[in-house]
């Protein structure tokens, strides 16, 4: 064991166990590092110029906690950094981990922080070196790398930064501390208010980023729920050109009155059209920029339906397998130092990319198209050129392929497209026929399966040519409410408004789901979410203000560039927070009443399955028998003595009412989610035709 070694050695700390293995593998001369254990904690010993002990953290081992322990007390403004097992339940493994790290670091004389080079990674490395390794943060060196490939790891080990990036660490500490202060105080205020009123405990939370994110969803929800559509009309002329039928749209997209629409329709019916003018335009479409985390998450959602947090996790796995570069980046730049040519040559070893890479490698110069976003720590996401050493899961294979094709596309030429607008005059009214075609594929060829572009090729026509109008179509339409956010668009909104960080945005969105403030794939704010926001807007509008959140983000970013002091940012944050908390405390009773009502409704909604198909007026609800404690489905009209409908329910697993009714009989359905079994759906109708069909088949 390393702790009993007499010889001095180098101690390397990484963020995750997979990274520790990769680094040890790259640094060991024979590529065979020894895997060892200390108190069950795995670590690696690599032999190089000297012995290197590589051990990993488990993500954050230390966290912010209140100075004095008092679980539901607020306000709390005094805090300290403590091992996670002290502050969080279920983190007991962290204690063993810290003890093992402390033991392994004891006889080391050189310390290297090899955690991911970003805010979170820097804090993980710093806190381990400072607290578990007895203040070694001041003497530690820093490995900086963007991929876990052997070449890059060897280089970053040979040429480490002489010390930790303390500005980045300060910025990270400030972010954690400010977020903790806001999160703990506001969440406790809401939770305590609801508990004091109703006597029941429900975890309610909000925070510096969570509040404004909920506000985006809630404002949209209110607009949708208050929406009143207005009518308008569209007119389409079906015209026959060279034997083919096309649909030409009336030049005014929305006709506001029925009278005007009827007048146009009457004037055009049974009349021929004449081509007045043909406008042809050619334009170039440059390749898309390389992926940063946000654009990768958006693209993966649009193409595969993956949530941002899923994409983030998949990309992290690909990074740990050294298949792609560090994904938590906001850069859209690809510096030449990554060596474009080598990557393409390496990728050509995979048959599916061979012909594409060969085309790019034949270019006299490889110059990527880059986007505007920059990240001082990492370049955009790119493939390392390494091929998978194991069979990738579907999601991993898709994201890897997407990153590779995007990488190839950025080196390619622009696509050349043509648009054609034909103006057709029908008895004095102008209709437009729009066509578009791709003249030269350019980058689209490299990005082909992921390109969303439809062609509409029009036949050759001449100005003055007469066309036959086959049919005039009048359609009555209505304006639509604004669309709900989806996980991808809400992420983009957070990026645009600069709230949160690339590492935490997906997690914030997930918290909104966990707290039941939003539901559904299209983010629908629940009544509870709307109430929480209303409370916040009424009693502490600053906290949910986008402007305040963004300004605070900017201040924290300035710490990173040594243009702002952490203490000043914390003091200013406290100055804002203190009166807010006071106001919440003063109004605790009113807030509690408002929130409790929403919680009660939310719990009722969770148990409501749908309209009772027997009495038609009651609701089928999950109820519990007083005698046996068992659950079953009953009609709410039972309490009025009107309906005795009831059905048994499985006693194990979670019952989730489904929004859709049974396709066989239209009765409401539930889904049962039980551990170790695939979820199954129950229709309560004993005479459901689907059940009868199944019985007959059996």
């Amino acid at each position, binding site marked *: 064991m390393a702790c009993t070694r007499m010889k001095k050695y180098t101690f390397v700390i990484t963020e995750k166990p997979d990274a520790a293995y990769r680094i040890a593998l790259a640094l060991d001369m024979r590529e065979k590092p020894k895997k060892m254990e200390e108190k069950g904690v795995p670590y690696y010993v690599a032999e190089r110029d000297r012995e290197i002990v590589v051990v990993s953290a488990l993500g954050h081992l230390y966290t912010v906690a209140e100075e004095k322990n008092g679980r539901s007390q607020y306000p709390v403004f005094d805090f300290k950094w403590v091992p996670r097992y002290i502050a969080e339940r279920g983190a007991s493994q962290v204690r063993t981990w810290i003890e093992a790290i402390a033991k392994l670091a004891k006889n080391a004389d050189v310390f290297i922080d090899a955690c991911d080079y970003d805010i979170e990674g820097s804090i993980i490395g710093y806190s381990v070196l400072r607290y578990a390794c007895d203040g070694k943060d001041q003497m530690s060196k820093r490995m900086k790398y963007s991929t876990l490939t052997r070449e890059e790891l060897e280089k970053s080990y040979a040429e480490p930064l002489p010390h930790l990036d303390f500005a980045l660490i300060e910025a990270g500490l400030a972010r954690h501390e400010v977020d903790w202060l806001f999160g703990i105080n506001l969440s406790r205020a809401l939770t305590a208010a609801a508990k004091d009123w109703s006597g029941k405990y429900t975890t309610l939370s909000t925070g510096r980023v969570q509040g404004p994110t909920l506000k985006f969803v809630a404002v949209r929800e209110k607009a949708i*729920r208050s929406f*009143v559509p207005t009518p308008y009309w569209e007119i389409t002329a079906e015209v026959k050109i060279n034997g083919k039928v096309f649909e030409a749209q009336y030049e005014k997209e929305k006709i506001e009155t029925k009278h005007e629409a009827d007048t146009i329709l009457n004037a055009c019916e049974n009349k021929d059209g004449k081509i007045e003018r043909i406008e042809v335009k050619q334009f170039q479409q440059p390749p898309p920029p390389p992926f940063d985390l946000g654009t990768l998450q958006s693209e993966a959602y649009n193409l595969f339906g993956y949530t941002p947090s899923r994409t983030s996790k998949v990309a992290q796995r690909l990074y740990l397998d050294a298949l792609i570069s560090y994904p938590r980046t906001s850069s859209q730049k690809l510096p030449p130092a990554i060596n474009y040519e080598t990557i393409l040559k390496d990728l050509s070893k995979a048959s599916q990319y061979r012909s594409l890479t060969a085309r790019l490698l034949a270019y006299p110069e490889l110059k990527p198209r880059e986007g505007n976003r920059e990240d001082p720590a990492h370049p955009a996401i790119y493939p390392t050129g390494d091929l998978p050493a194991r069979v990738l899961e579907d999601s991993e294979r898709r994201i890897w392929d997407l990153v590779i094709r995007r990488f190839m596309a950025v080196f390619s030429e622009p696509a050349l497209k043509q648009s054609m607008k034909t103006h057709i005059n029908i008895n004095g009214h102008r209709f437009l026929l729009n066509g578009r075609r791709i003249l030269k594929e350019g980058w689209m060829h490299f990005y082909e399966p992921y390109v969303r572009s439809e062609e509409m090729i029009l036949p050759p026509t001449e100005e003055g040519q007469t066309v036959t109008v086959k049919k005039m179509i009048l359609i009555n339409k*209505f304006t639509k409410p604004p669309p709900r956010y989806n996980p991808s668009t809400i992420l983009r909104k957070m990026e645009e408004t600069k709230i949160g960080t690339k590492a935490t945005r997906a997690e914030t969105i997930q918290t909104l789901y966990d707290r039941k403030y939003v539901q559904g794939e299209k983010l629908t704010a629940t009544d509870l979410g709307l109430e929480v926001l209303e409370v916040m807007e009424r009693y502490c509008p600053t906290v949910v203000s986008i402007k305040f959140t963004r300004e605070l983000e900017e201040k924290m970013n300035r710490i990173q560039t040594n243009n702002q002091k952490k203490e000043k940012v914390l003091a200013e944050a406290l100055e804002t927070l203190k009166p807010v908390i006071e106001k919440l405390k003063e109004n605790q009773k009113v807030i509690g009443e408002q929130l409790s009502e929403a919680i009660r409704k939310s719990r009722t909604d969770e148990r409501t399955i749908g309209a009772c198909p027997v009495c038609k007026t009651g609701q089928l609800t999950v109820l519990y028998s*007083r005698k046996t404690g068992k659950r079953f489905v009953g009609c709410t009209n039972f309490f009025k003595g009107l309906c005795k409908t009831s059905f048994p329910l499985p006693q194990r697993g979670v019952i989730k009412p489904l929004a859709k009714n049974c396709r066989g009989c239209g009765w409401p359905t539930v889904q049962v989610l039980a551990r170790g079994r695939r979820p199954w759906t129950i229709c309560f109708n004993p005479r459901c035709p689907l059940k009868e069909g199944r019985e007959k088949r059996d």
Partner: protein
Amino acid sequence: MDYMFQSTVPTERRKGEKGLKCKACSREARENGYCELHMKAYENAIEKYKVWQKAMQISWKEYLSEIVKNPLTGEWAREVAESMIKSGEKQDGTSN
């Protein structure tokens, strides 16, 4: 059947010591007899009538029933329209 259920409506609330209730839901009413949430829907319903009237020359009553049955109408706007149909409320806020 023997049910285990409990009242979740706080006693203070049931005593009815609060002010007027919203015409469309059980929340406390603010202006025009609507709560904060239904207020915007009410304003929209009043404002959009002008557009409907110009577009289709329909009466207030016809308009309200049109928006109630339109699937694009928001939940709160529909509740407001239904309450106005029920009470016979006109677009100027007066009743029949």
